[in-house]
């Protein structure tokens, strides 16, 4: 219940911080795109709008994870609101979990509404939606949860700006991690080899969450790799929250 109270309050905080204004921008993007590309054939237009829709859901959620996630804990310490909370009978890891869960709840609600708009615009264009489209968005959500975890972790020891930079870099490298492995294995240099391996196993492999191509081009999503990706994502999130908690547990709140 204590963690739940912290979670709900974080949700409330992001709502009052007008995070949901993102939705307005998203709705505009969806409306505009279906206007702009209307000169194309219906099939092609649908593909573009789908691509654009999935991309926007990804990007807007990423922006929230990046900007809200990195200030989540820092703001509490900076504005000194943490004093009256950590001195209450809660454990510090409950505070971390509560904050993390609260932001994920905000992103979930936000993504659900975006998905609603998205489905609506597809339907208005005469397309139909599939289960696969929903699964694809679910995996975007798991990916964003992971990114939020990264933002949380970095912000337990770095300033928000630095954390945002780190998080973004990890995000980019995380999408390239298979390529990094591939290229480092090609190299003759042993150091490059080792670094490539370390990076591959340390960085989250974010390409595992990307099923956009399958969905846009109408291929079936392989269920086993989807399941594997979800488990991988959730375990990675758990790890990030545990490490963040361990750091925060020892932090001097001054």
């Amino acid at each position, binding site marked *: 219940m204590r963690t739940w109270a912290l979670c709900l309050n974080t949700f*409330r905080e992001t709502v009052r911080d007008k995070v949901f204004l993102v939705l307005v921008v998203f709705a505009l993007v969806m409306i505009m795109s279906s206007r702009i590309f209307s000169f194309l054939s219906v099939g092609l237009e649908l593909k573009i709008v789908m691509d654009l829709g999935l991309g926007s859901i990804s990007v807007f959620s990423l922006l929230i994870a990046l900007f809200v996630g990195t200030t989540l804990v820092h703001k509490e310490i900076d*504005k000194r*609101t943490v004093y*009256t*909370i950590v*001195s209450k*009978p809660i454990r510090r890891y409950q505070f971390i979990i509560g904050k993390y869960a609260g932001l994920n709840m905000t992103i979930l609600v936000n993504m659900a509404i975006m998905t609603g708009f998205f489905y609506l615009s597809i339907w208005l264009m005469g397309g139909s939606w599939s289960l696969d489209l929903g699964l694809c968005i679910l995996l975007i959500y798991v990916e964003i949860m992971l990114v939020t975890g990264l933002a949380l972790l970095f912000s337990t020891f770095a300033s928000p700006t630095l954390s945002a930079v780190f998080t973004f870099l990890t995000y980019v490298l995380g999408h390239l991690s298979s390529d990094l492995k591939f290229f480092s294995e090609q190299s003759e240099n042993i150091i490059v080899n080792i670094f490539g391996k370390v990076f591959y196993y340390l960085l989250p492999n974010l390409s595992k969450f990307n099923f956009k191509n399958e969905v846009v081009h109408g291929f079936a999503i392989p269920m086993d790799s989807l399941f594997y990706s979800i488990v991988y994502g959730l375990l990675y999130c758990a790890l990030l929250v545990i490490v963040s908690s361990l750091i925060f547990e*020892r932090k001097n709140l001054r």
Partner: protein
Amino acid sequence: MRSVIEIEGLEKVYRSGVRRRNIHALDGLDLSVAENEIFGFLGPNGAGKTTTLKILTGLLFQTSGTARVLGKAAGDLSTKAQMGFLPESPHFYEYLTSRELLDFYCRLFRIHKASRRKKVDELLASVGLEHAADLRVRKHSQGMKQRLGIAQSLVGNPKVLLLDEPMSGLDPMGRRQIREMIRKLASDGMTIFFSSHILSDAELLCDRVGILVKGRLVDVGKMADILKPRMGLFEAIASGVDGACRERLEGICKRVALRDDRLHLEISGEDNLREAERAIIEAGGVLDSLSRMRTTLEDHFMEFLKPDEAAK
């Protein structure tokens, strides 16, 4: 009597800044506060009062030494459940109203929904914030935040209350209200440990005070002992005396000051007192008042700061 707060050899070094300059905020602090005591923790700016309170509440970790509250290490969960804390000039979620905020704190104490509303109303009333129950914290004045801070420290019906400058930012009426509240809480058995710069409040409230200078406790004592009358020192006020008499008095008294046409005298020793009385009467004046001088907490406090000032 049982010790509620026990601090032994507490040290805190802040490592900060680009040049990694170390600041010894606490330098071997020893202190114990007994059950049901009102203890005033005094000291000049930067003495380490806030640092001590933050260690006791588990916000900061000491560099060395021990700090125990209710028999357990500071920051222990079961201790925190029986402890209330008011931070120095407290800050709260600005987007919540007083009521929402207290409700949130009640949840952190796992107070059930059914009793939360009543509890919040009681707390708001006890600090005189009923009228601001639905006002966002953003729109609170300094004093209102301070009152809210005191209310939130009482959410869990604590056994021990740690207050960092509870009177700061309050108007005279507010200060009086809080004083009375602290007295009432203490009479119900609560132990209260507070830091303060307002010595007159501390003087009115405390059972015991400790004086902290540069991270060390330089004095600790019962209020009753500190405020004892000073032997052979008198304070007198005389009126209706002329310049010649004043000169004569200046020869007799330790200090003579003219305020509002009246002479304020400080006299040491009974012989000098008699002589001064005679001088006033012979000059046709009136002795308006005469009393033994008492030490105030301020006098006492200053004594411990003097060697420090001299060293500068």
